[in-house]
């Protein structure tokens, strides 16, 4: 896991070793993502066919037509949302056990990327739902509603992280909240499932739809490319969080030195403020 920091497994690299978030690994990764995105674009928009098959009446065609292409973003985004936020919850749990900044930074990075992916999932889902289901929003769909609550819960997590506080206390609170999200989601999922007891989802994407070879390939490619993109983003975000923590701790060292300097000149600093400057007196 040390590759997140671009150096040896030593958990505390020498200060100022990391001055920016890029490294050779991330540049290669970034180039890979770029190539992947181009490839995915070609497959999704040009090579893969629109969803269309003969209708019940002669001469008609039914299906999702070009709208199906949204799937190549929507499905990967949804999968990686759950992976990222699941990682956030897991990292939160490990933080509470190990109490190291490393896990706190990882949880933060994953939550931020996860929330963005979650927004992408919801938006593409709504845009896709409008022509296919005839509605932007379908309350009866378990995954839709669960994902929305997930989004709100982890948006709250980011809100908590944005409040200024002592690093250790903030990390502890955030970890408990991040873990709480993981506790919440299965309950929400179960309750929404019982609530409407129906879902439009599964049938419409992977089962009912005839997945042709190229469509399936594009979908798998989408998941792979999105995974690379998420990894690239998380590594950068993690390093940023790490740099922030380093800056915080460097600021603290400076403040500490300043404070000690203040103590070194007690006369000027105000030993006389009490009106009695005799200092330490024996018992």
């Amino acid at each position, binding site marked *: 896991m040390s590759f997140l920091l671009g150096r040896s497994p030593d958990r505390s690299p020498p200060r100022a070793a990391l001055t920016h978030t890029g490294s050779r690994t991330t540049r290669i990764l970034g180039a890979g993502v770029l190539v992947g995105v181009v490839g995915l674009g070609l497959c999704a928009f040009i090579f893969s066919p629109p969803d269309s098959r003969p209708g019940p009446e002669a001469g008609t065609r039914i299906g999702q037509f070009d709208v199906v292409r949204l799937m190549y973003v929507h499905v990967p985004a949804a999968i990686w949302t759950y992976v990222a936020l699941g990682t956030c919850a897991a990292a939160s749990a490990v933080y509470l056990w190990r109490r190291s900044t490393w896990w706190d930074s990882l949880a933060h990075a994953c939550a931020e990327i996860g929330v963005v992916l979650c927004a992408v999932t919801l938006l593409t889902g709504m845009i896709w739902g409008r022509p296919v289901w005839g509605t932007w929003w379908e309350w009866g769909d378990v995954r839709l509603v669960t994902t929305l609550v997930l989004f709100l*819960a982890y948006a709250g997590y980011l809100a908590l992280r944005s409040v200024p506080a002592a690093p250790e206390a903030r990390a502890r*609170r955030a970890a408990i909240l991040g873990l709480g999200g993981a506790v919440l989601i299965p*309950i929400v999922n179960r*309750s929404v499932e019982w609530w409407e007891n129906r879902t439009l989802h599964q049938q419409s994407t992977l089962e009912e739809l005839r997945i042709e070879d190229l469509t399936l390939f594009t979908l798998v490619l989408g998941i792979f490319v999105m995974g690379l993109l998420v990894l690239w983003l998380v590594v950068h975000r993690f390093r940023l969080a790490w740099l922030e923590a380093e800056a915080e701790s460097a600021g603290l060292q400076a403040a500490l030195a300043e404070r000690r300097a203040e103590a070194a000149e007690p006369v000027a600093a105000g030993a006389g403020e009490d009106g009695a400057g005799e200092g330490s007196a024996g018992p």
Partner: protein
Amino acid sequence: MREVLLVAAKDLRIELRSRVLLYQVAPFAVATLVLLGFALDADRSALRNFSPGLFWVAVLLTALLAAQRSVAVEHAGRAADALLLSATSPARIFAGKALALAAQLAALEALLGVAIVVLYDARVEHFGLAVASAAAATVGIAAAGTLYGVLAAPLGVRETLLPVLLLPVFAPVLIGATRAFGDALGTAAVNGWAWFGLLGLFALVYAVFGALAYGPLLEAET
């Protein structure tokens, strides 16, 4: 157990002395119901049909205020520090605070229950189910409210942060309690006791999670 009851009794006594719940939170709860009535255009049958959901929306909004108050009591004069310095375990403090909050919510729910009968023409068909599901929901709300309350407590933005954190958590309670009440009030053909089970599970999960997490949160300063 003695310490749990001591903490709970202390919180209830504070309410008895300050009357914040009675004079501020209870009127808020009823006003919420009245406004929801306006929103539905005074349609009698619609109000009756939606009364389970409207009731629980009002309860959850009210619970936000009650949870804020429960936290504010401890952090006003740093009394939370005194609790930390006592030999009492944080899990017991959590249980006591949640118990007191649950008792206060139960009183507010009784008031709102009367209000939906009067204002929304709701009819209770299965009293036992209504009481049982309300009890399970209340324990869950109180546990989650106490936990997230102490999480936001020492932060300057507690008043705005707490609702953002708490409302998503309340989502399954709202779904479950609305369905259970739908059965109890005869507005929905569902199995209310199954929903009671879900509410009980929620209460159990948050009671355990809260008891474990309360200590580290109480210790964490700003």
